[in-house]
């Protein structure tokens, strides 16, 4: 009888260390992962010695231009819109820039003080960036500060 009772007893596992470790891992990932980088598409950027540090401010304007098979396709906030030869992509870019520009007061000459960060794959033709620049110059947008994204030397 005594043996049977022993077999029937439930063995409880102590979950506390596992929960501790799990919480520690969550805290680690929360610190390491940077939410401001969510808008950055995976691109191969050209190296530039004179590239200054990007402050990675939240809410900054970023337009990605993809390379390879998707050369010229623009990506804004993780959404692909096609190349700027397509009217829907042009309209999406216009809407995005106009909305972002409206969030801050304009300068005396009517231009927007906010910079636009253009991230383009290194082998993609520059004409795609120029198309974005042309849209930046349109009435209602008027962005003149353009920042070209580049990789920094690791030794810097």
């Amino acid at each position, binding site marked *: 009888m005594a043996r049977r009772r022993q077999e029937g007893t439930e063995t409880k596992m102590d979950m506390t260390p596992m*929960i501790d470790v799990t919480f520690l891992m969550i805290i680690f990932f929360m610190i390491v992962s940077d939410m401001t980088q969510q808008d950055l598409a995976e691109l191969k950027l050209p190296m530039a010695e*004179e590239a200054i540090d990007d402050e990675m401010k939240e809410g900054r304007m970023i337009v990605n231009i993809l390379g390879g098979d998707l050369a010229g396709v623009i990506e804004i906030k993780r959404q692909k819109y096609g190349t700027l030869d397509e009217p829907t992509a042009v309209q999406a870019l216009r809407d995005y820039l106009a909305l972002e520009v409206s969030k801050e007061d304009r300068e005396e000459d009517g231009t927007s003080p906010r910079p636009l960060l253009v991230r383009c794959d290194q082998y993609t033709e520059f004409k795609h960036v120029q198309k974005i620049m042309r849209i930046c110059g349109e009435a209602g947008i008027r962005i003149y500060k353009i920042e070209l994204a580049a990789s920094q030397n690791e030794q810097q």
Partner: protein
Amino acid sequence: MGRRKKAQIEDVDLDLTPMIDVTFLLLIFFICTMKFKVLEGKLVTNLPKDVGVNSSPVDDILEKVEIDILVDKTRSEGFKIAINSVVQPDIKTFRGRVDAFIRNDAETRATLYPREGVNYEQVVKVVDQLLAADLTDITFAGVAFDK
């Protein structure tokens, strides 16, 4: 009676399963969305602000450098640079010319004309050289504002 109550209280076990489930879901979320900080910088440039005809006399005094970037497959770097329509033999000579402009006038402005077929990397290389020579007033041509 008192003993019974104590025994009842001791028996209450907190069910940790939902909390562990949620914790693991959070962990999976962070693992999936995590991106390590990348070494990325930026090169600051401008677009022309002028609308229509510019009658400002200040621009005429300042020295302007017009830089054409053209595709040239015969060169190892795949492109050539021309300063005020004079083609530069290589990027070092180009840098030397830009340095000379800056020595002559520290407020020299550069206007870039990237031509058909030039890629992003080539333009960044040119902008990088200009910034290295302390020429910070860089404007891209051909994108004037609407009237």
